[in-house]
């Protein structure tokens, strides 16, 4: 099996743009940026303002995308830059792409008008047809389709090996990385762009998680402190993409590895008290993890957050534990990639020699990623 290394990271979130900004925020330890007002009573971690032109030069491309895709496309560009691949058309032409994604934004005004009109519509079905035919922007569909973030990355950045889009909330982020790593390690492919993007500043996604009772509705508190007060997650806008390749491939093109991806394990426990804890134990054992730092994807949701805390006490006694939720919020499909990026940054900066990144999904799915020195 071949070693798999990370050679480029692109990261955007409420904590800023780029790996450095995030590592600084992590070491600074201050409270993260939140917006309490826009979706009151739901705080969100809003994406930092970005000059889209810097990574998505054509306005026509920007117009075809909604924020989740723009965030992802922007981060993908940063990752390609950092990996020294941005200007290498031939390399990007054989680069494989795996994206972890949900779906795209809606036209909230149109939805509201239709719901208002439906109340007194003589024939609701006919009314719905007429309004959707008349009011939906034709191109909005392309900003909603899950695989069109990958499509936009191909168009804007020319990454055209082939793309696959994984769905399934947090797990999709872990499994995107896992499959990319296995394909490289086994020699099936040499180089990948992998990552995900999430826009939390959307009432439709808040609605899904509020229906399930998963959202924190008070001002920001660290994820570990939330269970005592009922628990809940604060969604965050952000995106993270990384270039992964075999060690030999990186060496042959003179790319400097930041860290090695030593192993990725994921599973799906039947959730009950203690199941997430047991699952993390199994995954860490499978990876033979002996981390000196942990980057946790903990959500702050009651039960699973304490489960994870208990597991980490055994898996990584004495190691500092940083929660990505306390830095950028919960970025769902982008959560695991973001954790891996931060861990790779700490290892590259000699702040750690081995890191464990955890992902305990808010509703299902557990994952762990072990990173070591390159």
């Amino acid at each position, binding site marked *: 099996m071949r070693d798999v290394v990370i050679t480029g990271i692109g990261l955007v979130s409420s904590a800023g743009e780029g790996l450095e900004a995030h590592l600084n925020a992590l070491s600074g330890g201050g409270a993260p940026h939140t917006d309490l007002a826009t979706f009151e009573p739901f705080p969100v971690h809003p994406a930092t303002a970005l000059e889209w032109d810097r990574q998505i030069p054509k306005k026509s491309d920007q117009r075809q995308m909604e924020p989740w895709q723009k965030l992802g496309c922007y981060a993908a560009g940063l990752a390609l830059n950092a990996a020294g691949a941005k200007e290498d058309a031939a390399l990007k032409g054989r680069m494989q792409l795996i994206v972890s994604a949900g779906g795209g934004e809606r036209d*909230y005004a149109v939805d509201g008008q*239709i719901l208002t009109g439906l*109340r007194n519509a003589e024939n609701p079905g006919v009314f719905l047809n007429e309004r959707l035919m008349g009011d939906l922007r034709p191109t909005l569909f392309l900003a909603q389709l*899950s*695989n069109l973030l990958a499509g936009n990355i191909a168009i804007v950045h020319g*990454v055209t090996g*082939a793309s*696959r889009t994984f769905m399934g909330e947090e797990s999709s982020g872990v499994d995107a990385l896992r499959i990319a790593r296995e394909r490289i390690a086994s020699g*099936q492919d040499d180089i990948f762009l992998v990552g995900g993007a999430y826009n939390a500043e959307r009432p439709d996604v808040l609605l899904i998680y*509020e229906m399930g009772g998963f959202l924190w509705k008070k001002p920001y508190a660290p994820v570990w402190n939330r269970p005592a007060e009922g628990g809940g997650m604060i969604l965050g806008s952000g995106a993270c993409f990384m270039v992964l390749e075999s060690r030999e491939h990186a060496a042959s093109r003179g790319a400097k590895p930041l860290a090695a991806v030593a192993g990725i394990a994921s599973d799906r426990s039947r959730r009950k008290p203690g199941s997430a804890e047991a699952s993390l134990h199994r995954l860490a054992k499978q990876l033979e993890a002996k981390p000196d730092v942990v980057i946790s994807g903990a959500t702050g949701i009651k039960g699973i957050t304490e489960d994870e805390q208990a597991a980490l006490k055994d898996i990584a006694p004495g190691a500092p534990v940083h929660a990505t939720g306390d830095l950028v919020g919960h970025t769902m499909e982008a959560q695991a990639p973001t954790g891996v990026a931060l861990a790779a940054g700490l290892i590259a900066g000699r702040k750690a020699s081995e890191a464990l990144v955890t992902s305990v999904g808010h509703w299902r799915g557990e994952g762990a990623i072990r990173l070591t020195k390159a």
Partner: protein
Amino acid sequence: MALRDTKGRPLVAVTGMGVVTSLGQGKDDTWAALTAGKSGIHRIERFPTDGLRTTIAGTVDHVDVEPFCAPVLSERLAMLAAEEAVGQSGLTPGDFPGALFIAVPPVEMEWPQRKALAEASGQEGDVTYKDLLKAAASGAFKPWHDLFIFGTVADRVADRFGTRGSPISLSTACSSGATAIQLGVEAIRRGETDAALCIGTDGSVNPESLIRFSLLSALSTQNENPEGASKPFSKNRDGFVMGEGGAALVLENAEAARARGATILGYVLGCGERGDSFHRTRSSPDGAPGIAALRQALADAGVQPDDIDYINAHGTSTPENDKMEAMSCTAVFGERMASLPISSNKSMIGHTLTAAGAVEAVMSLLTISTGRIPPTINYQVPDPAIPLDVVPNVARDAKVSYVLSNSFGFGGQNTCLVFGAEPKGA
């Protein structure tokens, strides 16, 4: 026979298949109808179609689900197909010894649910998402969280069949079903698993989904004669017809399948894929990405273009797809393309979108095992720009050893698979 391919990788055998489409439930019913040239396209009865440009589809109406919405119907179609496939494979139901790769339509909350939330909010003036959020806070709608998140269909299928590990839900738009199979093939070749359950499912014919495609002018508007609307490769083709369906394949390391005495139905010999950066919904005018995917699939399978006996086309019936597919195939197969049979199942079952690649994989393998090529129906007006042997209107008997199946999708997705009765050189 060697149980490794010419590249030294484990051979990937198919030991179970299941399918459900508008033509029927199970591969026997579907295959009988498909080779009889029957159409499953009909007028939409599921919701009012007043004011719509397209009023026909290949919906699956013989399956009842509650609440009626895309994720629940898609889940049911996946379950039905997988029950048939796993049943045929002889593997223990509920204890599937491998991973799940499932192509599912991107889900989101639908209008009946939005309407229920709006009503529950008590808002009597203008409704906004603030009102929906207020209604959601009551906790009365908790099951809808699980219903409308992306990983749920896979989770439930994994529970039912006892697949191992984290199930993978995926989308590569209209090539998703083929990608699910490709992921399974790769995992077996890596030696990660000896078995994979690969599924494509789509039950998303609802007003908004249909209107979205309609607004992109992708759908046929020839509503008068629903059965005649899907006309792949015909000069008067005017768009695709939405269809629903599900298909499942049990893939196994051939050595493991042989060791347990399983009946091998055929092999997935090769996979090819290629991204296209030209446009969000259109292919590169030179067809280069599609051509590359075709060639890669043949090379991966270790076969030459001349070995292929039949092409199961993507064949959507849109002006663009059929022209580009014919061009790409001609580039790869040369003059032989004029006489190499190529037919489109979509002429009968419509475009089953996320499921299409998996449904058509099952049909490709049945073509090999039965020696009968399903036709392209509704082929009355040939397109002189694409002179192909589309197996017009009537099924044809032929010895078919190797099939190429094409899948192309929005977002620059091109995925091609090669199936065989036996590996080349066996």
